[in-house]
């Protein structure tokens, strides 16, 4: 898929117009969102993520600056034309009773249907394709109010697909979902950028997931504005650690992910490799013990077949589980 910028932001100021004064939420936003890419907007609560999404969806006008959608200013589009170019999945949980998933997805065809909203054969085919694309065929005849949050979110995404827009904007599509559903939704969206060449822009608080799946990350900060790039570039130039690293959160360069920081009380040499090594390291970190193969210490743990605790004052102690190892270690350290 070719990657062309579909949405271009030029010196954008977003916020709310008051009678006498404007309330600017964020200013000086510039950047481009490309087709065939999944772009995730990250930022703390209240930084203006939703306002930015609302502005890009043309729900509210920008205070200053321009938004170009496929080269034409967003404000120049008519409501009707816009509805075939940008579709949204919102956080507002719509409590609709007595509507089937298929009917909801069918609503996505509204911009194309006539006066009564009757679906033609082509419309029905598009609806079916959208339902299949998000893998909810078994749910198609179910009532919306009987679905779980994750299933409903998928139905909403299917609605956006039925709208057949090149751009899809989603406001926290993974909020309130359990972890497998979060992953499923993100992978689904990622797949759509690849298979259908969609431009997908979403806001999320699921940092780890975004860092693993997103093609581009937009970091939004009250002071620094917006910084955009691939997750890896942002990691390399220190933006990621700068953004979120604060009390208790550190950016782990080795994994490219965030982790909780610990204040270490002890340091222990850890020998071995592979996942058994990493898991012991993780368990010890949680117990405020820094452990890796570069630490110099009297006490040493070897991970191989089992876990062996070596202490200069005692014979090597083999442990069957990490739990047993932790107990033995805490006794040795006291």
């Amino acid at each position, binding site marked *: 898929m070719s990657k062309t910028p579909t949405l271009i932001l030029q010196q954008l100021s977003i916020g709310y117009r008051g009678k006498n004064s404007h309330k600017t939420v964020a200013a000086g936003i510039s950047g481009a969102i490309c087709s065939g890419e999944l772009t995730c907007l990250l930022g703390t609560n209240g930084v203006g993520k939703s306002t930015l999404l609302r502005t890009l*969806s043309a*729900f509210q006008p920008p205070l200053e600056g321009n938004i170009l959608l496929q080269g034409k200013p967003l404000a120049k589009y008519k*409501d*009707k034309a*816009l*509805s*075939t170019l*940008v*579709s*949204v999945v*919102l956080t*507002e949980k*719509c409590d*609709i*009773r*007595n*509507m089937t998933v298929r*009917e*909801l997805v069918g*609503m*996505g065809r*509204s*911009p194309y*249907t006539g*006066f*009564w*909203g*009757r679906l033609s054969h082509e419309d029905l085919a598009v609806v079916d394709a959208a339902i299949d694309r998000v893998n909810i065929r078994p749910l198609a005849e179910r*009532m919306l109010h*009987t679905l779980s949050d994750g299933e409903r979110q998928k139905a909403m995404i299917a*609605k956006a697909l039925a*709208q057949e827009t090149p751009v899809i904007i989603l406001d926290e599509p993974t909020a309130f979902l359990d972890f497998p559903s979060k992953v499923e939704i993100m992978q689904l969206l990622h797949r759509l950028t690849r298979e259908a060449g969609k431009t997908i822009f979403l806001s999320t608080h699921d940092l780890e997931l975004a860092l693993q799946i997103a093609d581009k990350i937009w970091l939004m900060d009250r002071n620094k504005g917006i910084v955009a790039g691939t997750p890896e570039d942002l990691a390399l130039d220190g933006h990621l650690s700068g953004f979120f690293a604060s009390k208790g959160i550190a950016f782990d360069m080795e994994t490219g992910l965030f982790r909780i920081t610990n204040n270490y009380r002890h340091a222990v040499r850890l020998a071995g490799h592979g996942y058994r090594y990493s898991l012991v390291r993780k368990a010890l970190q949680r117990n405020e013990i820094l452990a890796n193969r570069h630490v110099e210490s009297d006490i040493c743990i070897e991970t191989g077949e089992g876990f062996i605790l070596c202490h200069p004052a005692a014979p090597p102690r083999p442990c069957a589980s990490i739990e047993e190892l932790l107990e033995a270690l805490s006794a040795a350290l006291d």
Partner: protein
Amino acid sequence: MRRPLKNTVLALAILLSVVLFMFLNIALGSVSIPLPAVWDILTGTGEAPANWTNIIWKSRFPQVLTALVAGAGLSISGLQMQTVFKNPLADPSVLGISSGASLGVALVVLMSGTIGGIALSQAGILGEVALTVAAIAGAMAVMALIVLASHKVKGNVTLLIIGVMIGYLANAIIGILKYFSVEEDVKAYVIWGLGSFSRVSGDQMGIFTSIMAVLIPLSMLSVKTLNLLLLGDGYARNLGLNIKRARILVILSAGVLTAIVTAYCGPIAFLGLAVPHLCRMVFQTSDHRVLMPASVLMGASLALMCNLLARMPGLEGALPVNSVTALIGAPIVASVLFRKRKSDLNE
């Protein structure tokens, strides 16, 4: 294909009940007319006493038509209000439009006696027309206020509260008027307030039914808009709907329907609230392409049934329609709601 077929069968069943209730309304009454004679009069064959012909064509038939279109109109109005305000408790009276009509009538009824020195009840046909005009004027005045307000305020809830406040205001003024009026006028007003399908007669019925015959099909044009509004403002807007315009159009449509029906029949409670719920439950859908015609049929059927019960033999003139609609409707809706809850759990 299962659902459309099921819907057609259900719609036909309700239509059948409408026809049945129409016939019963014509056949039954305080003056008992034997069925063959009723049939002869309706078909225009055979010889029937002139007074029977008069009762059927001048009294019962207008009542049937009035109940039919009033029930249908109020139900559509209720459905539109519930959808546009996303509030299951919304009904035609929620925006104070029927209170506006009441205020108009109260002004005419109560002031004419006090200021003009003539009791309106003695004014005959002229009085009837005056009441209708006053009710429409009052309702339209309130609606103008609401539409004006809907330009200014953003939220649905705010608009709803403004409507309710206007209703309270109208009722307060009515209360003051009542307090300073003579007893007969107050009684005349109270009787108007009980609602009736039998008030519309002769020429007026022609005007009423033809206005409704235009308004009801017109209001059907809002189905796609209403379906989109179901999704919530954000989604509806994203699908190309101009929310502000849609909201005003739907409120106007529902408001005019309410205003006209209230002007001719008095404030009929409950039908507008109950019928849309019944339709949603019976047809198991929120698609207004189904709900709109369903509400027309169901509203007509229920109004006819209530009218029938209101003048059951022995009760002639004793029960106001307004009480019957609530007495009959409330248990029906409650029972359907309870059953619904159970089936929800089983899903």
